[in-house]
């Protein structure tokens, strides 16, 4: 239990577009470089409409499963993998990152990318995860995934594209609603009040 009470969050609002984006913000790796993949998806609201003013951040291990602690995300040199990136969606609600498949951080564990979602109309940021498809056994043994019913579990697992990339959509509400995570059981936070 924390000694101090956390400062509340607030919506990112509609006007982050001239402040938060920066050149190559969504390129954890230069596009086309060896091992690079496209991670893409669409952000939807509760009516199934695409959201044109969301911004996502990802934070992930490198392809070997190492957690990187290198500076340089905001001024990318084109060679250093920092593990962190930011992508605003376009007018059609689509975001794109260039990154690598994260490796397992422990032998046999299911690799995942940590995600934060921000949007106008979203009161506070939401945390979630993007798991790589493929290793069925690792996914079945994952502590978070195995605690979820099957239909909800699938919202956290990306699809493999024919070009080797990943597709993972965000549904803020309604049918197929993405599982969002609360890491802070000692605070009151969430939709169900």
């Amino acid at each position, binding site marked *: 239990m*924390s*000694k*101090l*009470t*956390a*400062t*509340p*969050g*607030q*919506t*990112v609002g509609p*006007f982050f*577009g*001239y*402040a*938060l984006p920066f050149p190559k913000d969504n390129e954890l790796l230069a596009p086309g470089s060896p091992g690079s993949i496209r991670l893409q998806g669409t952000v939807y*609201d*509760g*009516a199934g*409409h695409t959201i*044109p003013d969301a911004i996502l951040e990802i*934070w*992930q*291990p490198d392809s070997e499963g190492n*957690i990187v*602690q290198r*500076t*340089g*995300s*905001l*001024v990318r040199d084109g060679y250093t993998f920092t*593990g962190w990136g930011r992508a605003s969606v376009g*007018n059609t609600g689509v975001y794109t990152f260039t990154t690598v498949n994260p490796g397992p*951080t*422990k032998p046999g564990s299911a690799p995942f990318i*940590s995600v934060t979602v*921000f949007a*106008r*109309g*979203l*009161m506070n*940021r*939401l*945390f979630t995860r993007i798991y790589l498809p493929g290793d069925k056994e690792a996914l079945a043994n994952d502590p*978070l995934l195995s*605690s*979820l019913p099957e239909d909800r579990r699938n919202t956290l697992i990306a699809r493999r594209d024919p070009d080797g990339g990943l597709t993972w959509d965000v549904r803020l*509400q*309604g049918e197929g*609603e993405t599982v969002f*995570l609360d*890491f*802070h059981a000692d*605070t*009151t*936070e*969430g*939709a*169900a*009040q």
Partner: protein
Amino acid sequence: MLQAVNPKNQAVNPEDPEQNEADELVPAAEPKAGHAPLDAAVETQADLSAEIQSIGDAYRRALKDGAAPETQPRLDYAPYRSSILRHPTKSLHHADPETIELYSPAFGHQDVHALESDLTIQHNGEPQGERMIVQGRVLDGDGHPVAGQLVEIWQANAAGRYIHKRDQHPAPLDPNFTGVGRCITGPDGSYRFTTIKPGAYPWKNHLNAWRPAHIHFSLFGTEFTQRIVTQMYFPGDQLFPLDPIYQSIVDQDARDRLVAAYDHSLTSPEWALGYRWDIILTGSKRTWTENEAFGASGDDEE
């Protein structure tokens, strides 16, 4: 001639409720459009204030009956109309942070130039408005300073206008003010920005909706789970009770944590007024066992 641009770059269709709801922006097809009544059926501040009041009353009754105080905004807060289709309806799933989530991306002086913390020197001339300093510390829930981390801010100018192309509020842009700043916290978690006090600005949540003056803050902790984006407000703003975004935090003590304090010791003689605002992130979840599992790869300071 300015064109009203809606988020989907489509013509505004009054028959489409989703589109109307999504459009918080003041249309500027005419310079005064933002001030004219938009529609006879549009909701008024009185309608919204009644909703805000009712939710607040219910919360205060629950508190009296022993409910735990809420410390964060409600994701489901209908008075902010754009939240209606954008909040999860299922409870957030409790998870123990693992591996990557127990670390934060690293930022440093390679990422941010020292001059980026002064928003008044980004152009050739002096921006208009009341020059101010905002200073404070970023701490985790145990009171430890968050050192060497990224702080980003953005804000409207003194007239309440964002430079963002989608802000069509008919107030003047200031050619000498962009309204974006960054800094890296010091060893004691401290940050400091020099800027211009932002103005209140109108938005389209309901008729005659105005946001209290605020500065957007984006913060990282020592763990990814501490990531937060929020807004800092100014003491004594008369718009507080009217604003659905501020009021989405239903607890008064929690709301107060977003309001900076005027601090005369930060005021610079014949130069700028000073405000102090400390930011507390959530508690640290990383444990010795977790660190050990990953060796020294990310175990930077403990």
